[in-house]
């Protein structure tokens, strides 16, 4: 059996669309249900719908063999997982942003509000900086507006939310999108099954099948 963890929300919806179009192992996802976990006997796959920020834990503890989640979530969690394939879902960037009228300058006294303290700290360490990092759970755009921080680090897709709150992107430093990733042990022991699943995503048009894809 292959155990597949899928991030609730946009990722689950895109996979359900692929399931609707063709006779494949994603078909079961296209059936409306409130269940969070379901087993497909035909393909011997168990799917589990999980909160994106929880998905790395399912992989780390082996509750899932593979998962589909953004690399921002993965990097923030710090877990070791094998990246099988990049996906064309949720493409955006991780960026520094702040008030339009302010000049962007990073120094040790800069206070940064973010939902991604680990990613932010890692990037600053590479630049030899030790800024103050304030961890927030949401509405990060408010932080510089209300004086909680000088700048923010957040994911930016179109920039519309930033603009609506009087913020601009100062500098992006990481490309973000969804990835198909595998538990380290499962990758070694179930490689063929994982590759079959990855092929379904590639044939469905969301998997990037290039020289770096493990297929």
């Amino acid at each position, binding site marked *: 059996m292959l155990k597949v963890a899928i991030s609730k929300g946009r990722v689950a919806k895109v996979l359900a669309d692929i399931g609707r179009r063709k006779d494949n192992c994603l078909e079961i996802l296209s059936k409306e249900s409130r269940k969070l976990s379901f087993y497909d006997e035909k393909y011997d796959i168990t799917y589990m719908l999980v909160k994106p920020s929880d998905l790395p834990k399912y992989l780390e503890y082996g509750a899932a063999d593979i998962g589909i989640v953004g690399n921002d979530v993965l990097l923030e969690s710090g877990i070791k997982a094998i990246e099988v394939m990049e996906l064309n879902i949720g493409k955006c960037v991780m960026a520094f942003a702040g008030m339009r009228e302010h000049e962007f300058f990073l120094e040790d006294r800069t206070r940064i509000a973010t939902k991604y303290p680990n990613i932010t700290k890692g990037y600053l360490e590479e630049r030899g900086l030790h800024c103050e990092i304030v961890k927030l759970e949401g509405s990060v755009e408010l932080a510089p507006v209300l004086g909680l921080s000088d700048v923010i680090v957040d994911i930016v897709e179109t920039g519309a939310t930033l603009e609506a709150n009087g913020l601009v992107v100062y500098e992006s430093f990481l490309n973000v999108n969804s990835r198909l990733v595998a538990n380290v*042990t499962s990758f*070694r022991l179930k490689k063929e099954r994982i590759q079959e699943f990855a092929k379904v995503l590639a044939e469905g048009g969301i998997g990037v099948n290039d020289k770096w894809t493990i297929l």
Partner: protein
Amino acid sequence: MRTKKLPGGIRETNLEEAEKMRRCYDAFSIICREQGYKRVDFPILCYYELFQGKAWIEDQEIIKLIDYDGKILSLRPDMTILAARYAALNHDNEEQMKLFYEGKVFRNSFNSQINREENQFGLEIFGPKGAETDCELISGCYNLLRKVGATDLKIFVGHSRILRGLLRALKLNEDLVNKLILVLNQRRFREADEMLCDIEGGDRIMELIGQLDRADSIDTAIETIREIASHISDEDNNYSRTFELIESLEEMKKQGMDSYIKCDLLDSGGFKYYDGLVFSAYCREGVGKIAKGGRYDSLMESLGRPMGAGGFAVYWDVLRKKEELLC
């Protein structure tokens, strides 16, 4: 009924788990003695100076204490380094010295919400080097695990020098090489490609790394290593040590070990004292690695007693989750 709140404590092993562990260790001892291994006990408290500045284990992982005379002690973070020290002190001929051990190691990197301890048993072989010794190590690990009930085993063989040798050929600094190795161990190829995009020769090295990744059987691994060998930097004998792997793989095939061996040529082994063949064992439906090992001849050189050295440790805390264990 308890009337007082108990002080907080780190989790103990329950009675059933402790019994199971004891039975497994006893079974392991019998098997090792039958094969000529001798039991050794290492101290739990060591002088920190044995590990300090050596970069074998990350410094922040070592749990340190201060002795009454101001000396820094540490809880043993690893058995292999202690075994190496024992061999450096006590072994001075070409014969094999075969040791086995059981016990706990202590590190800050373990799940500190539960404990900082890990139960291990393992064995180490000192003396001769060469393909036959490598095969004895790996087949010893495989047969031992099968005898205690861990079936459906696969052992993945890698080498600590191949990836490092390829990256060193680009004249990169040590920090960047270490970072790339971490990234490549997780197959984050795009990220590695971006890190090397401005480095002359980076493209070609990434192509070779892709070839290494695809070489998962003994035959394809031998073929691939031969093809890429000329690109490996010979700094620290990376190039020549790589050919030792070919000899070992050929011997493994000759001994029929290819039925349970796969290759993972991007696996550098994890511990920095590994300087040659490395291997990891996995069970079907297991959670994580159940054993890891490799060669560490350079560690013996750094202790002033050059000799062949290799061993492996079995992680009891992972192995115990296998319900079909015989012990």
